[in-house]
């Protein structure tokens, strides 16, 4: 017997929401005249895509950015929406280690793929045994540490935020029980928690998504040969 973890439901809900959102945006973008002045949502989307695209092009080449930018954008969007799930009283999917491990593993596979492509098969195999053969162990450990640090950073930050919020809710709940008449209604938390939600969910979530994006781009760019 295995039980279903509660985060699975929020993963499904968030995936559906993102898919629906992208469908709506796609509809809207198809109707836009490409020669007209962009405004509103279209302008916002264009700015975001251009910002990420510029960053990817700076670190890698123009050719790679064509394939890398969509991946980076979709992962960042997913992480951001998953991190702010606490605002909609869902359990954040990124507080489940399997989710962050998969996201980090995807990035690590991409790092290896681009490294192999840039160097060619022979040099890529050789790069595992550098500077000489016994160092293969250290190289494996350093690749594993990338995976561990990428996944655990996201997981630890979001999990600790979620645990802290639930502890604060319990504490404020026991305080507001002292108020006569309406003790069962958690009145104190209404006054205190919005600021904390702003920090732990919105700010920390956006920050972690941004850091994951920057690190993915930089780690992939590090493996490519310098052309300038």
């Amino acid at each position, binding site marked *: 017997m295995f039980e279903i973890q509660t985060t699975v439901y929020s993963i499904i809900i968030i995936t559906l929401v993102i898919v629906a959102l992208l469908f709506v945006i796609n509809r809207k973008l198809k109707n836009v005249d490409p020669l007209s002045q962009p405004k509103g949502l279209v302008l916002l989307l264009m700015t975001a895509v251009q910002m990420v695209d510029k960053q990817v092009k700076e*670190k890698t080449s123009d050719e790679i950015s064509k394939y890398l930018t969509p991946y980076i954008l979709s992962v960042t969007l997913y992480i951001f929406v998953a991190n702010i799930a606490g605002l909609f009283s869902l359990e954040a999917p990124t507080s489940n280690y399997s989710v962050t491990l998969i996201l980090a593993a995807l990035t690590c596979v991409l790092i290896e793929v681009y490294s192999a492509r840039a160097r060619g098969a022979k040099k890529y195999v050789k790069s595992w045994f550098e500077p000489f053969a016994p160092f293969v162990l250290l190289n494996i450990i350093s690749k594993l*540490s990338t995976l*561990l*640090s990428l996944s*655990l*950073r996201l997981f630890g930050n979001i999990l600790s935020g979620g645990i802290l919020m639930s502890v604060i809710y319990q504490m404020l709940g026991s305080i507001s029980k002292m108020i006569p008449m309406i003790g069962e209604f958690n009145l104190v938390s209404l006054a205190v928690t919005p600021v904390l939600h702003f920090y732990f969910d919105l700010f920390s979530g956006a920050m972690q998504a941004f*850091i994951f994006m920057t*690190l993915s781009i930089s780690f992939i760019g590090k493996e490519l040969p310098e052309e300038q």
Partner: protein
Amino acid sequence: MEKALLGFAAALCVMAGCITGLMEGKVAIKAVESIGKNPDAASKIQSMAIIGAAISETCAIYCLLVAFLIIFILGA
């Protein structure tokens, strides 16, 4: 008694975070200083600072991992 000891061990593990926090603050200070000196290189300095902070954060993340292992595997 044993549970209290395990909790104490986990708390000691996470204590490594205080030095990491201090030093990552130093990374941010230096990044801001060098952007002030040379604003043209801001994007390069920014990515370097984030990578440096991320790699030195690995140490604190290992400590977090050890604390998780103590709590969830030894304490379960």
